[in-house]
């Protein structure tokens, strides 16, 4: 029998590998799905030539291509900051998964303060954006990083406040507990305002159209990752799509009843709900034009923040009256 500490380490490594595998496979599927959805929305076919059913191998071909690319470094950039930024983008996206239950008991570490942990960890993404923008020593990157920084800060707040209302209503920060409290009614119905604020905030956090100001293609080329190429750029993409997956799973757990559903096993229900939300995010992305930076700030501070505060007040009053 192995010593206890070694067992513990081996289990940890195994869990980490499993999570990494799950996240990577999902991100690859998501990148393919985004292309297919955008293609069909635009009356196109989307990826097709590489092979597999409906061109599903396209993302693998892309990864091979990106790995083979030149590792370019801007001459006057800040090397350490520049090199670390993609990892800082991807690591928090991965870390969230350690407390995110995919099904009943299907979680790496069921934390009592899981929601708080997720909120804390996702705040790191602003750091990676800023590191990338600053380290590149590029004006487009810098403007993109400034925009994305301001955007992420101002949408963090309404999102967290929306979750505060959820915590008020359920009385717990443990995500499994929150799911368990939704057996009677999904939280989206009593907490629709919170859902709305959280979902809009999530789309903004993910830097997706209509809020993709950090990488606004028409004016900033590619925003904060203009200077990145090859596998480093792929890390940003991977982080972005992992974040899309995490926030969709989180919304489906917190607002859409998680694994409650007939017939199918719990984790399938979670994934079905998450992928539905992902599709909606893609649908929104390929329909709407981009907002301007001042309109984005207005929406965040003058609309979503008061709305989430109002929601907390309403929830509090309701709880007090019912109690």
């Amino acid at each position, binding site marked *: 029998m192995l010593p206890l500490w070694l067992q513990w380490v081996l289990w940890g490594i195994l869990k980490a590998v499993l999570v990494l595998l799950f996240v990577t496979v999902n991100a690859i599927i998501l990148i393919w799905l985004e292309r297919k*959805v955008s*293609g*069909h*929305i*635009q*009356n*196109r*076919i989307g990826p*097709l030539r590489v092979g597999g059913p409906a061109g599903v191998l396209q993302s693998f071909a892309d990864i091979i291509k990106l790995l083979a690319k030149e590792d370019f470094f801007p001459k006057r950039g800040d090397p350490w900051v520049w090199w670390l930024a993609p990892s800082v983008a991807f690591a928090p996206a991965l870390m969230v998964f350690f407390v995110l239950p995919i099904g009943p008991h299907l979680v790496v570490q069921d934390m009592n303060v899981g929601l708080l942990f997720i909120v804390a960890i996702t705040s790191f993404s602003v750091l990676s954006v800023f590191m990338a923008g600053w380290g590149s020593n590029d004006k487009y990157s810098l403007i993109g990083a400034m925009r994305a920084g301001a955007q992420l800060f101002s949408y963090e707040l309404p999102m967290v406040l929306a979750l505060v209302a959820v915590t008020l209503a359920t009385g717990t920060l443990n995500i499994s507990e929150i799911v368990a409290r939704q057996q009677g009614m999904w939280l989206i119905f009593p907490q629709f305002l919170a859902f709305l604020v959280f979902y809009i905030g999530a789309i903004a956090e993910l830097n997706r159209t209509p809020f993709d100001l950090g990488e606004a293609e028409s004016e900033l080329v590619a925003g904060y990752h203009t200077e990145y190429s090859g596998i480093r750029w792929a890390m940003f993409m991977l982080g972005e799509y992992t974040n899309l997956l995490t926030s969709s799973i989180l919304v489906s757990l917190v607002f859409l009843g998680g694994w409650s559903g007939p017939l199918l096993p719990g984790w399938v229900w979670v994934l079905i709900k998450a992928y539905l939300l992902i599709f909606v995010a893609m*649908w*929104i992305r*390929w*329909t*709407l034009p981009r907002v301007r930076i001042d309109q984005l700030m207005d929406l965040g501070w003058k609309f979503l923040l008061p709305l989430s505060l109002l929601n907390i007040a309403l929830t509090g009053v309701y709880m007090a009256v019912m109690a």
Partner: protein
Amino acid sequence: MPAWIRRAAVSIAKGHRVTLDQMLRRPITSLYPEEPVPHFPGFRSIPVLKANEETGKLNCTACGLCARSCPPQIIFVESVVGDDGRRKQWPAFFNLDLSRCMVCNLCVEACPFDALEMSADNELSAYDVRDLFFNMEELAALWKTAPAVRIAGGQKR
């Protein structure tokens, strides 16, 4: 509820209806190399040299009217000089520089002998600009392989 929220929600919902509706339709993409896109009659690519169907000889008499009418001056034609030192009525060479051709049809309109025609073969790309220089034999062969088409409507000046 303020009016702008309602307006925004309705307009955004309308946009999403359009995209969802289009998503459920058949894609309009045509897979180009596998399914060649047909050209309409009258489509013009480059001028090619016509030959007489019975004798197999070129109609060209090397009069040079096409070369003079060509705006970018890319047709190079010279007549054969016989043993007696006089110019004959057939071309010694007829070269065309496709890299500068504007496919304007002016040479065809200038030709009084019906020796030129616009070909419909547009897949003439090359990796080297020198491969876009066509000589008399190549142009005559192009006329045989690629179905050349009359200008649309069948009317000619």
